């Protein structure tokens, strides 16, 4: 479904991504991990072209993102994205946050989009908060609304960019619960995360990055189950992260 083909990206003369190649199939739950500054967040943002690439290409559901003729807004509307800092629209109520893009981008009617939005809000267990503003919710609640907002667009794939990194520890669980449920329903997901428990239990594939390169790209059972087969860099990372 997503074909990342040999992409490279530079910020000025600094190369953030070097020849990254991987494939994500329908129904895959892929976890992207690695030390900070390794290019994980940049990689996931290139998938819906929020970050432009200078070399290579990405094919999302048959559409090339670097093709000049591609309607990027239309492509992005089919790819859900959840951000580290939630990025709900603070000047709009929860309901408006859920319906705005459905109405303005997908051209749905107001009734239709409210119905769809409320269904998703119910799914993340926050129906009671539909008339509040984002600032009135806790971080965990905001992130769940952000997931509902992305799901309201009926995406073919969901991208999660460190969805729990900015949360208080006790709120991490509620967000992960939503993500686990989503994965069990068969949603195709790509998640940048440090939650190794989630990666171990839910994902079927792990991508390990270091210094802008994809170092490991393997089944998660192998990544966690056969540490002896891993590269030294991944071994080092795993030993540090699994210690506790």
């Amino acid at each position: 479904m997503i074909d990342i083909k040999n992409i490279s990206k530079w910020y000025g003369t600094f190369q953030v991504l070097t020849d990254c190649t991987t494939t994500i199939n329908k129904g895959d739950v892929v976890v992207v991990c690695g030390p900070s500054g390794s290019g994980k967040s940049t990689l996931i943002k290139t998938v819906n072209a929020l970050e432009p690439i200078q070399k290579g290409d990405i094919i999302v559901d048959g559409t090339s993102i670097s093709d000049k003729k591609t309607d990027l807004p239309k492509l992005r509307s089919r790819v859900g994205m959840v951000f580290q800092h939630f990025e709900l629209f603070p000047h709009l109520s929860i309901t408006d946050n859920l319906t705005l893009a459905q109405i303005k981008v997908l051209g749905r009617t107001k009734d239709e989009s409210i119905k769809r939005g409320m269904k998703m809000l119910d799914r993340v267990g926050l129906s009671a908060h539909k008339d509040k503003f984002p600032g009135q919710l806790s971080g965990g609640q905001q992130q769940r609304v952000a997931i509902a907002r992305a799901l309201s667009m009926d995406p073919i794939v969901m991208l999660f960019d460190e969805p729990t990194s900015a949360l208080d520890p006790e709120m991490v669980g509620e967000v992960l619960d939503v993500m686990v449920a989503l994965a069990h329903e068969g949603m195709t997901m790509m998640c940048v995360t440090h939650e190794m428990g989630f990666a171990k239990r839910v994902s079927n594939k792990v991508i390990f990055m270091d210094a802008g390169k994809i170092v490991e790209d393997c089944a998660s059972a192998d990544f966690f189950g056969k540490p002896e087969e891993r590269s030294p860099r991944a071994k080092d990372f795993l030993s540090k992260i699994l210690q506790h």
Partner: protein
Amino acid sequence: MALDLDYSVLTPEVIKTNILPGLYYSLELTFVAMLGGVILGTLIALMRLSSKPWLQRIAATYVDTLRSIPLLMVILWFYLLIPSGFYSMIAGSFGENHRPEFAAVITFTFFEAAYYSEIMRAGIQSVSRGQVYAGYAVGMTYSQCMRLIVLPQAFRNMLPVLLTQTIVLFQDTSLVYAIGAYDFLHGFQTVGQVYNRPNEMVLPAAACYFVLSFSLSMLVRRLQKKIQIIR
């Protein structure tokens, strides 16, 4: 000579025929210039923040030029340079007869746009990059993202500053005396000349400007507190 001030000439009749039309015009000028200035200023701010260097250049030149010339000179230039045919074109004979008044509206709109654009630029930059990403990520185009996500927030963040600039604008409108437009101050001056009481008329004019501007700034201060709570 003692200050023997005589305000008996300021009858309700005189106020109605001479002063109030001037006040209306001053308020009209302020309001239209604010509205036009904010709209034009926002466009200039967007040009300045665009990724196209030639658009940035045009916007920067516009802002830097107008901010480097005294307002009084800009008022005179616009008045002298715009041909009278232009006014009859936009408002017929009414436009021709009120040339200074129309010239002032145009001047102030373009002049204030330079200042409002800097405020809006700061406002747009106060909205985080993540909000823009979020807008794009749900499939919005650049213009949707600006209209629906960034500008509403920028506007709200900058409202107190925009209004403060409008108070300055209101006071500056008194400069249109240079081209003879009939504004609030001109109204008082006319009364002073007609009834031979020029000295007396300076004080109430100043008092009125003070009261209007001061109450507006009080309003802005209250608004500022309110916005702080919402955040």
